[in-house]
């Protein structure tokens, strides 16, 4: 199976929430590591719903998402992604969609809202991704 353009990712609480928790003397939840799939076919970034909820992040919106049988409403969450050992800066997605992703082997799906600020090259034959800011 070809896994496509994937990279290691850590799912973190947003910086603003980490700052509030620290001010209140509460522990900042530890990030959850996994794989992120870069998906230029997706209009928006998504994060695994169970992971973001396990970090204590509360929803900040609802989005309408197209499905084969019509449309569905899904919660939106602020989330910070860190891509370890890549040299890439953190990616803040202020309104990522919460979806069931873990069962599909990923914890995040990076969509065009996030890709709009980078140059993305996928060299399929050698399995190399290039992301440039």
């Amino acid at each position, binding site marked *: *199976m*070809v896994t496509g353009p994937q990279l290691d990712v850590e799912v973190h609480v*947003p910086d*603003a*929430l980490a700052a*509030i*928790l620290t001010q209140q003397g509460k522990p900042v939840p530890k990030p959850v590591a996994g794989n992120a*799939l870069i*998906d230029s*076919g*997706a*209009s*928006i970034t*998504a994060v695994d719903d169970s992971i973001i909820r396990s970090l*204590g*992040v*509360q*929803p*900040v*919106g*609802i*989005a*309408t*998402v*197209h*499905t*084969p049988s019509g*449309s569905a409403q899904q*919660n939106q969450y*602020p989330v910070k992604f860190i891509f370890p050992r890549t040299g890439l800066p953190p990616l*803040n997605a*202020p*309104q990522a*969609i919460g*979806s069931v*992703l873990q069962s*599909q*082997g*990923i914890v995040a*799906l990076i*969509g065009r809202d996030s890709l709009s600020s980078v140059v993305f090259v996928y060299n399929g034959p050698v399995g190399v991704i290039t992301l440039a800011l």
Partner: protein
Amino acid sequence: MFEEEMAYYNQHRQDFLSKCEWKYVLIKGSELLGTFNDAQEAYTEGLQRFGNVPFLIKQVLRKEQVQQIPALSLGIILASS
């Protein structure tokens, strides 16, 4: 979730469109807490006002967006080559 907030937004939508199209509104219950240039600003303000609880951040748009994630909606992330 956000039934009360969305009802408030829809009730005031035309007013928002005339005054702050493309900006982000922060709504909790039936109260508008402010308009912001980006969603992160609105989130920081919401956290400072209410703490870590749900509140609605919504971009004011003339045409509501329907997001597309075909790999998920069609279940083809794990498709074999």
